[in-house]
């Protein structure tokens, strides 16, 4: 495990509550989704982020609203940490027209262009080239902003991972690659799929400066992410951050987890980022036990309201089936 770097983050009480609150929001949101899925309110695939909250929360702290985020199908946490309205994300889970993507995408395709949140991508490795392209557009148009591309370690086996890292390094593009290494690509442990299991080595082979960090430590993640984002912003080309983390739940809902032992899961649960951080803050005197209760109460209210919103939200009419396949043209004449 990597030692946390010297903190440049000023951990005020307010900031601490913010970090903790976001992680708790994600946790409770995901637990609610699991329940709703069992009740068949959410259908299809559901990939829960439980255990990995520190990654999304820490990394989002390093980004400005002008930066871009490209994520995977396990993106609910990133969406919430990015600031997408909880009710809209929940409505999207339900498939309602009031959802982030009009209900058309569902759990795996949450998009919010106003917050520069580009999904929600279901093909492993498939969004890495998109992130490279967004960064390319920024560089070509002289805009100084970061594209943060978040993916799991499973993507490292895909050709697109290598093509994207190579292109980003070759053209010195402002991409912050964040690899959430939770050690399992669905049911395949990293040792069984990668000849080199150190993700940083992969990045370094393309000449991209890379670091690993304890993904169960939200502050460590935030510190590393901020530093790397600044380096990218300074025009140093891409950076690669590996968050060593663990998902407490299965890959998706329908997964008997035959590929790992319960004992291993229990061992990692002891490092649950939320109680760990809460304890640390209480020990440091930045937080009282009562504060946590207040946060939990707030979060419960927000989620209850989001569920009610989603329940009541309308379905998109079937007559609208064929919309949004092509962009409507306001003029049919060819412009010269």
């Amino acid at each position, binding site marked *: 495990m990597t030692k946390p770097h010297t903190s440049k983050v000023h951990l005020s009480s307010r900031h601490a509550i913010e970090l903790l609150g976001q992680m708790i929001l994600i946790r409770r949101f995901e637990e609610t989704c699991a329940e709703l899925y069992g009740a068949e309110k959410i259908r299809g695939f559901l990939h829960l982020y439980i255990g990995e909250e520190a990654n999304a929360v820490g990394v989002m702290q390093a980004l400005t609203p002008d930066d*871009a985020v490209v994520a995977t199908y396990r993106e609910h946490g990133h969406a919430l940490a990015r600031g997408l309205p909880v009710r809209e994300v929940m409505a999207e889970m339900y498939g309602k027209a009031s*959802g*982030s*993507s*009009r*209900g*058309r*995408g569902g759990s795996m*395709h949450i*998009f*919010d*262009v106003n917050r520069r949140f*580009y*999904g*929600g*991508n*279901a*093909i492993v490795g*498939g*969004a*890495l*080239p*998109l*992130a*490279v*392209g*967004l*960064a*390319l*557009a*920024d560089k*070509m*148009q002289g805009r100084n902003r970061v594209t943060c591309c978040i993916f799991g370690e499973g993507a490292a086996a895909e*050709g*697109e991972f290598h*093509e*994207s890292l*190579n*292109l980003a390094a*070759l053209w010195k593009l402002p991409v912050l690659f964040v690899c959430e290494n939770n050690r399992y690509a669905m049911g395949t442990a990293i040792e069984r799929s990668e000849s080199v299991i150190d993700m940083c080595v992969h990045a370094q082979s393309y000449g991209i400066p890379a670091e690993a960090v304890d993904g169960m430590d939200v502050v460590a993640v935030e510190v590393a992410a901020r530093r790397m984002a600044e380096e990218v912003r300074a025009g140093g080309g891409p950076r690669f951050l590996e968050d060593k983390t663990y998902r407490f739940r299965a890959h998706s809902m329908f997964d008997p987890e035959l590929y790992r032992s319960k004992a291993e899961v229990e061992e990692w649960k002891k490092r649950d980022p939320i109680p760990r951080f809460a304890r640390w803050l209480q020990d440091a005197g930045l937080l009282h036990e009562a504060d946590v209760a207040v946060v939990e109460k707030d979060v419960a209210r927000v989620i209850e309201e989001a569920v009610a919103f989603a329940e009541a939200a309308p379905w998109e009419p079937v007559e609208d089936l064929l*919309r*949004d*396949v*092509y*962009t409507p*043209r306001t003029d049919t004449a*060819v*412009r*010269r």
Partner: protein
Amino acid sequence: MTLMRKITYREAVREALKEALERDERVFLMGEDVGRYGGAYACSKGLLQEFGEQRIRDTPLSESGFVGAGIGAALGGMRPVIEIMTVNFSLLALDQIVNNAATLRHMSGGQLSVPIVIRMATGAGRQLAAQHSHSLECWFAHIPGIKVLAPATVADARGMLWTAILDPDPVVIFEHATLYNEEGEVGAEGDLGVDIECAAVRRAGRDATIITYGGSLKKSLAATEQLASDGIDCEVIDLRALRPLDDKAIMASVVKTHRAVIVDEGWRSGSLSAEISARIMEQALYDLDAPVARVCSAEVPIPYPRHLEIAATPQPEAIVGAVRGVMRK
């Protein structure tokens, strides 16, 4: 009436690229060997010198990577023209085209548009054997969310690119490899911005309708010469756009002639000709005086020796035979 001049298809593509780069600074060309090499088919010769490395980007051999990057750049406000050397290599980028370019608008609930243009060479006829001779236009024409073009004339090669660039949705343009040396007429200032939705009647006729696209157009026209000397007057429709298909033009012709022959260089099974035949059956059954005939590639990977390559692909003789068949003459 503008003055006409004669240029080759490849010159038309180059002119169209150059003009697009001049007109709109968001446009850039990206692909393998488009810069220093001047383009695998010499379509971008000289452009690197004129527009520089930022806008004429040589890429590594990473079809998925650079097509996806093009899609991302389009999301980010650019108007990329991505060149995939041939349709044969586009298979490596199908994930990006089908799972990203075609779906982002829909999956995001209408928040995103992907204004990308992807150009690629296609087709057989140069003895390049099985892995370099595909005609897979129908696979792309199958996908909602993208538009597919097949410029068969020099004028269309010149004019379709700008309209495609202005289109807010992904447009895939297929350039048949045997057309690059062909000469044709364009206006003095070029045919900037022709429509990309309508088929064109390249030859009017009364007895039978030949429906075709891309590299098969000239073979179809050659067949009509021979048929005309036998008193059979064919109408030839150049589809120009493969998605969307111009049903109106197809049916207007079939209703007039009562007989249809479709010439498609794809393999027969599951081809674009099968789709067109189905549509004719749906929309003009009671006007047909014969079953719709199809002239397609034989069910074999394209062979290397010339005589076998010819036998495997649509040729004027076979088109003549198919027209005679529907005429029952």
